[in-house]
């Protein structure tokens, strides 16, 4: 009974370590909202598939503090993303920029849709051309045991 109770308590208490919570102060709500938007779209360089908002890694913590500092300095979102991009490259942006290197990433889906469309059109066309019922009259007549003469 006791263990059941403690299990219940454990289940009820929210997992504290789920997301890093820093006590950053912002002079207004707008900055705070932008802060949370920014740390959600920056990827933690250390942990592959987590944003810096959800990571406990040291570098994520440092980058959150840097984001906070840059916001207080009056930097725009673009300037902050540029700052991160200059230092950590394409990897850090969950929304990668369109460059020569990332062009494949951006345009491959479009290319696939185009290929699919071309294929579809060509298949439909072929069916339209070949689609008329193809009856070999001679063979049919032969099968039915009729003479050509009778047919005409």
């Amino acid at each position, binding site marked *: 009974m006791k263990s059941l109770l403690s299990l219940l308590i454990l289940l009820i208490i929210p997992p504290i370590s789920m997301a890093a919570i820093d006590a950053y102060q912002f002079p207004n709500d707008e900055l705070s909202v932008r802060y949370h938007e920014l740390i959600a779209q920056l990827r933690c360089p250390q942990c592959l598939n987590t944003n810096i908002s959800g990571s406990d890694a040291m*570098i994520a913590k440092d980058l959150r*503090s840097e984001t906070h500092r840059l916001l207080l300095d009056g930097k725009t979102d673009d300037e902050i993303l540029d700052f991160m991009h200059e230092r950590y490259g394409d990897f850090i942006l969950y929304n990668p920029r369109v460059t020569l290197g990332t062009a494949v990433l951006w345009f491959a889906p479009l290319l696939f849709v185009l290929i699919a469309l071309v294929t579809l059109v060509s298949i439909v066309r072929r069916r339209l051309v070949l689609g008329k019922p193809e009856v070999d009259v001679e063979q049919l007549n032969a099968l039915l045991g009729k003479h050509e003469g009778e047919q005409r």
Partner: protein
Amino acid sequence: MTLNKSLLIPLVVFVLLILLLGLGFTLKDPHFLPSELIDKPFPEFSLVDLESAQTRTREDVLGDIVLVNVWATWCPNCLIEHPELTRIAADEGVTLVGVNYNDESVKARRWLQRHGDPYSFHIVDNEGRLAIDLGVYGAPETFVVDQQGVIRYRHVGPVTRDVWQRTLAPVIDLLESGV
């Protein structure tokens, strides 16, 4: 038997896809990030020295080919690479500069007393600000900085004998011969 060639198209696409995905397995380390800072000047900084009250700036890194090594006492790989760094400083005559990253200076000094200090000096980067400017995302990381203070190479992870022979030494030789 004649084969309808168009039936082969899905197979070809499939094989190409497998090859493309297979490429992913050949990437040695998914953690590896190409450095944005190669061929860019070493960042400006103004931080305190670990062993004196001196302020260290970018000027202190200039003049010679320097290995800038980002290390910390909490980093096990830093201990692993320490003997090799010590050897490089002693036998290869390369100047080593330490960046003590997100560490406690008292611990760092004790660590150096215990394991030896082959570095010319250490820059204390307790808030990781210089590390961010260097694009560092863990320790250890080692940068080759040329005579003009331009970052020419970056190594992520411990510097082993193999790393020295294969990458760092050739890069430094090239820089020395280029002068």
